[in-house]
């Protein structure tokens, strides 16, 4: 393994972990909003 590649890989993995964490949190929040009384889905995916 070349010097520095491990560091670049680690940075990339951290960025990717941040993105997925954000998407999972956003998904949960959207689910909560969709479950609220009064929200009617117009038809479409469940995410």
């Amino acid at each position: 393994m070349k010097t520095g590649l491990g560091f670049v890989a680690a940075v990339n993995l951290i960025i990717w972990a941040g993105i997925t964490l954000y998407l999972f949190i956003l998904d949960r929040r959207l689910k909560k909003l969709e479950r609220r009384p009064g929200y009617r889905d117009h038809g479409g995916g469940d995410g």
Partner: protein
Amino acid sequence: MIYKILLTIWMNLIIAAVFLYIEPAAGFPGEVSRILFFHVPMAWVATLAFLLSMIASSVYLITRKVNADFLAQSSAELGFLFCFLATVTGSIFAKATWGSFWNWDPRQTSIVMLLMIYGAYFVLRSAVADHEKRRVFAGVYSILAFCTVPFLVFIVPRITNSLHPEDTLNPAKPGMDIKTLIFFLGSLCAYTGLFVWMLRLKVRMLRIMDKERGRINFHK
């Protein structure tokens, strides 16, 4: 839920393998060719997103179903994002291979034009107050905007003198063995999966915002 977890694991594996397992693609200087595993999938997803936006806009103009407009808007936004990221990663690659981040190479110029064309799409959307008119104008514009995509992405850089790999002045082609190719295709699939995930979230968000008329801040 399961596909999101699988996608997360898959993307982690791809990133780790790209840097730690496979050899850099032949035909390019040093380790920088590893950026191909990110740059090309981003450009692919951007083109796919613009295509999807055009199709959804056409569906909206025919059927007037609001969901189609949500899909068109979401897809255009994500296409713009991935196109911007492809430009940034391309610039990093350009620095390593051509000596400077920005050369106004036909490929770079055409991608900037594409970003400006889709930037205008968002300006148009925000400039029209009436919902119905906004959706119709944006739908027509999205179709017109996509007409430029094949020219700017595939044709212009190939009929002019460009330094971009596989174009006129630089016939360099990434040399990939089967192992590298598998991870390259895996990266394409992972980015496509990420795009689908983000797209579905964005469509749901627009649907709720439409229902609530912007009273919700999703980031709080």
